[in-house]
């Protein structure tokens, strides 16, 4: 086994889905069964990624493999230098794990979709789009440089656009696709600006080269401040892609896409790309940037959680929970819980995919009914769906023995440790509140959907358990939400192989002065700069002391939430509606998603559209009018084309009229046809000339 084998393998993994896309798209019209090819491709991709993961962990667990080639370059003959823009791969354990996650969920969603999408008129095209998504996502995961990441970043945006708007006959779907793309672009502009700063400073896009330059003291514009700005700008990309506050508005709308797509793209993988991006650039984040990230993550965890409380669309609830969980991960990165953030990414990918696919199963059974108020009692009709859903919900609520517990608890513990170290106590408080809310709304969802009496008998009658291809992924993913895959000790994740062995500890390259205190390398460690702050004594101690309080508190919160959900919805001890009535303003605020869409529409969108209309008017009337309207030209246009008059009128009227009159006077009045007046004019002008030149 050589490193180059892995590189070749990853190239294979990257390009395979692209092949699937091209073939499926081109042949889709003619060959009805081409989707099988795409599915085979994705299965092959999956097994390749398993092999890659295995080889990486088995043979090169501690090495980072990277390779790059020149994409295009600029020779400078004058200075004799060459500027290369490279494409390249970097495979560390995180890459390998992420690749595995993407390939696995992608494969499961492919298989699931065979049934779910059956009968769709653009069946093959759907699979083609899944193919290009997988390709682009793999690109994001595998890259070793920020530009290439940006490229694939945009490409996943494209595939997301295509898939959200897959049923484009529905206006809401088409709108949602557009919204997703544009909102993402807002974040991307920030990211692009960050990339510009990086390139300007380091003349390279490669993460490693940038990091080594930073650690050797080269900073953008030679200031820590600009390093912070760069970090935040890059993070803007993550804000867009991971639907963080304030750009989270696109994700709930994205639920207009087919449900498997929501599972794959808008829950498990693509939205997690933002987290992945922050993981990749973690080394250049200063303390200020991290704080910013943490705050954004915290807000993003909280707001959607409150919104999810009141939503009635099964997918919307899950969507808001996704945003909330992504907020968790982002916050985790902000507080330095690097490994937990990534861990949560992985576990969340599995259980959230399971939840979405489960909801898809329900929706499929209910004939595309998504309103949970019309469901209920499905527990018996769809047992497999139900149980997998429950397991995943337990996982997301952070109940022990689930994977969610491992990662989520770690995050809460880290935020406590962080609070202890730096004094930012809002992080643990909010993360606990969110844990409570999460548990509540997830079980509200389960109870309303599966428990109780069916509320729409007609649809209930026709409901049935989904076919094998749809259930199998559910079971698999729910299975992956059990702790056993990650650690032998269900209560302490840090002893598990994934955290202790697989996920590399982060290295921080920013100047000492701009780090948090606990991240500073102590003087006796100078010889060993490679050591991560995670291994620093001070941090270890803080983590240790936070471990149990965090676990207890978070469990308390989760159980409280679940309990409360049961009280309100299962046992109906408290009437949900009456609570809603009592806190009507708050309820409406939550139901209407904090009015984000309305505010954005009234401000930014309205402003842009309004401005564009004003400018178009300005262009047609003023600019055009002015340029034509060196006035009499305008008149003359009208002389040619009668209807141009309106421009004259609308344009710069007075001047035109005046000038026209003047010319008319000059031309028309002088050439009277009377020879004597001509002669009088000649003599008159001779006298004038005499006066001028005397």
């Amino acid at each position, binding site marked *: 086994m050589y490193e180059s084998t892995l590189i070749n393998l990853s190239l294979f993994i990257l390009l395979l889905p692209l092949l699937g896309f091209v073939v499926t798209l081109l042949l889709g019209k003619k060959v009805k069964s081409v989707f099988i090819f795409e599915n085979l491709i994705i299965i092959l991709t999956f097994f390749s990624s398993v092999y890659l993961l295995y080889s990486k962990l088995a043979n090169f667990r501690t090495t980072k493999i990277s390779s790059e080639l020149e994409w295009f370059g600029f020779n400078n003959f004058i200075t004799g230098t060459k500027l290369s823009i490279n494409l390249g791969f970097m495979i560390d354990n995180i890459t390998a794990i992420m690749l595995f996650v993407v390939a696995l969920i992608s494969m499961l969603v492919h298989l699931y979709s065979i049934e779910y999408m059956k009968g769709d008129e653009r069946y093959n095209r759907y699979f083609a789009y899944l193919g290009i998504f997988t390709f682009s996502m793999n690109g994001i995961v595998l890259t070793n440089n920020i530009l290439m990441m940006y490229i694939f970043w945009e490409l996943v945006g494209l595939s997301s656009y295509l898939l959200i708007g897959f049923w484009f006959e529905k206006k809401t779907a088409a709108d949602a696709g557009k919204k997703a793309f544009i909102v993402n672009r807002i974040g991307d502009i920030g990211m692009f600006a960050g990339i510009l700063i990086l390139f300007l400073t380091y003349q390279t896009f490669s993460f490693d080269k940038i990091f080594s330059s930073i650690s050797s003291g080269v900073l953008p514009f030679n200031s820590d401040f600009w390093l912070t700005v760069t970090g935040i700008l890059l993070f803007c990309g993550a804000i867009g892609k991971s639907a963080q506050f304030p750009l989270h508005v696109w994700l709930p709308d994205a639920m207009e896409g087919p449900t498997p797509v929501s599972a794959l793209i808008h829950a498990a993988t693509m939205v997690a790309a933002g987290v992945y991006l922050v993981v990749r650039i973690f080394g250049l984040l200063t303390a200020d940037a991290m704080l910013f990230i943490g705050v954004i993550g915290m807000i993003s965890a909280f707001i959607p959680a409150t919104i999810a409380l009141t939503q009635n669309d099964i997918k919307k609830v899950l969507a808001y929970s996704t945003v909330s969980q992504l907020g968790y991960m982002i916050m985790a990165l902000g507080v330095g819980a690097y490994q937990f953030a990534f861990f949560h990414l992985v576990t969340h990918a599995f259980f959230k995919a399971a939840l979405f696919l489960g909801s898809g199963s329900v929706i499929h059974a209910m004939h595309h009914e998504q309103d949970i108020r019309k469901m209920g009692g499905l527990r018996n009709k769809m047992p497999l769906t139900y149980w997998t859903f429950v397991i995943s919900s337990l996982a997301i609520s952070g109940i022990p023995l689930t994977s969610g517990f491992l990662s989520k608890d770690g995050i809460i513990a880290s935020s406590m440790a962080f609070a202890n170290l730096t004094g930012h106590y809002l992080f643990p408080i909010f993360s606990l509140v969110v844990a409570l809310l999460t548990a509540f709304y997830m079980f509200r969802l389960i109870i309303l959907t599966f428990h109780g009496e069916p509320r729409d008998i007609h649809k209930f009658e026709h409901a049935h358990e989904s076919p094998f291809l749809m259930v199998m992924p559910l079971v698999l993913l729910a299975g992956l939400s059990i702790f056993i895959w990650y650690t032998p000790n269900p209560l302490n994740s840090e002893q598990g192989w994934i955290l202790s062995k697989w996920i590399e500890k982060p290295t921080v390259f920013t100047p000492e002065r701009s780090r948090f205190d606990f991240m500073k390398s102590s003087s006796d460690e100078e010889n060993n700069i490679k050591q991560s702050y995670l291994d620093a004594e001070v941090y270890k101690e803080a983590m240790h002391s936070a471990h149990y309080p965090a676990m207890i508190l978070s469990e308390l919160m989760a159980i409280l939430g679940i309990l409360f959900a049961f009280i309100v919805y299962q046992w109906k001890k408290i009437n949900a509606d009456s609570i809603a009535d009592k806190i009507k303003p708050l309820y409406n605020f939550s139901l209407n998603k904090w009015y984000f869409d309305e505010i954005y529409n009234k401000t930014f969108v309205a402003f842009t559209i309004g401005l564009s209309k004003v400018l178009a008017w300005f262009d047609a009337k003023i600019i055009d009018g002015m340029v034509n309207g060196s006035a*009499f*030209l305008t008149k*003359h246009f009208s*002389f*040619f084309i009668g209807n141009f008059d309106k421009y004259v009128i609308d344009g710069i009227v007075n001047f035109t009229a005046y000038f026209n009159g003047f*010319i008319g006077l*000059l*031309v*028309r009045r*002088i*050439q009277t*046809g009377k*020879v004597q007046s*001509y*002669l009088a*004019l*000649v003599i008159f*002008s*001779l006298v004038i*000339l*005499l006066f*001028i*030149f*005397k």
Partner: protein
Amino acid sequence: MNINNFLSDIDLIYPEIILVSTLIVILLYDLIFTKNKRLLPFFSLSGIFIATLFTILNFGKNEFAFGYGSNNYLLSIDDFSNFFKLIILISSFIIIHFSILSNEIKICIDRHGEYYTLLFGMMAGMFFLVSANDLIVIYVSIEILSLSSYVLAGFVKTSLRNSEASLKYVIYGGVSSGIMIFGMSLIYGMTGSTNLAEINSILKVTALSDITFLTSILMVLAGIGFKISIVPFHFWTPDVYEGAPIPITAYLSVASKAAGFAVLIRFIKIMFLSGITNNEYWVLFPIIDWRSLLVIFSIITMTLGNLSALWQDNLKRMLAYSSIAHAGYILLGLAVLSNQGLTAVLIYFIIYLFMNLGAFLVLMLIANEINSEDIDDYKGLGYSLPFLSAMLSIFLISLVGLPPTAGFIAKLYLFIALVDAKMIVVAVIALLNTVLSLYYYIRVLKNLYLSKPNERYIKIKNTSLSYPLVFILGTPVFVFGLYFTPITDLAKYSLKILGI
């Protein structure tokens, strides 16, 4: 005065003699053979041909002719005058063909003798005018030219507009020449001489700059300005051009304008030149700010010409205004007051000759068929008369001054002269005028091609003479646009003006 000198001077004016002889031959022929007029064009063409030969032979001689007093000469047969004679001869040659083709002229077949006689009268007048070196000669030849053209402008006696044109022309012309001769009388009074060169030497000694002298100069300029129709002496131009028969209009717009410019240049250069700088700029007596005067004249001329042309619906009248505008451009070349500007003027004339006559020729051929000069009647002609329309487009584009037509070269040299003289603002104004002029020229093209064709189908009956002629006029417009060495060579060669 020595009779031998006189006889040797005769040698120099063979072209003039030929022209006058042809005139007489035509007159006699007309008197004798009252029925058969068909040979008249032939006589005319041969006369022109022979005169051309002699003119060409005169190139390079550069001699004064007909001296009197102490070293004063009436005529200067220099290359400058030969150049203009050539221009006049070529345009006359083409005008004869015009006349053969013109329906207007054709209908007065019994008066053809008169027509060609007067044409030669004009030619003779112009010939003397371009070599005139004396105020008297200038006056006399202008009158000869004018008197013939007055009659020709009203040649079709039954035509109302012919008559009106000729009346306006004669009154306007009479007053202009009257003012001019009054101005000349004042100059004579102040300098005691009518000879341009002698006046120059007098001005060198006595600085005359009082208002009387200025008045007299302006009066003479008014007379010459009438000939070349620069604003404000141009008022007759649109009316007469519109009224006169097309061949005469064309002739007036090219030949008579050329002659007028020749005499203007000579008047200014010979009378007022005090020296030439190293880079061949003229230094004139500071009687008046010559450059400002000429620049003002030319800018007003081209702007007013273009602006007025915008409003015209009659193509002939539009071309009249366009010719006013072109007079402005040409005058700008003179306003540079350098040999370079002069070259630009000469080049402009060669090209103007072809493009303007070409435009008038097509105008005439179409007018022959549709009996209208109205631009609106040209709608869709591009499809029924493709050749003529294409050629008309080329002539008009050349008049705008777009490459690769020769009109561009004309303008190019003009602007080269202007820029070299650092008259940038003037150049910009002139260029904007060019853009302006596009407007009305393109209107013709628009009607030819872009507008919906009229129902009627028009066909030119006899094309054996007209089409080749149009083609012959069109060829230089193209060739000189891409290869202009010959005309610049000719212009360069023709800079030689005899004088101080």
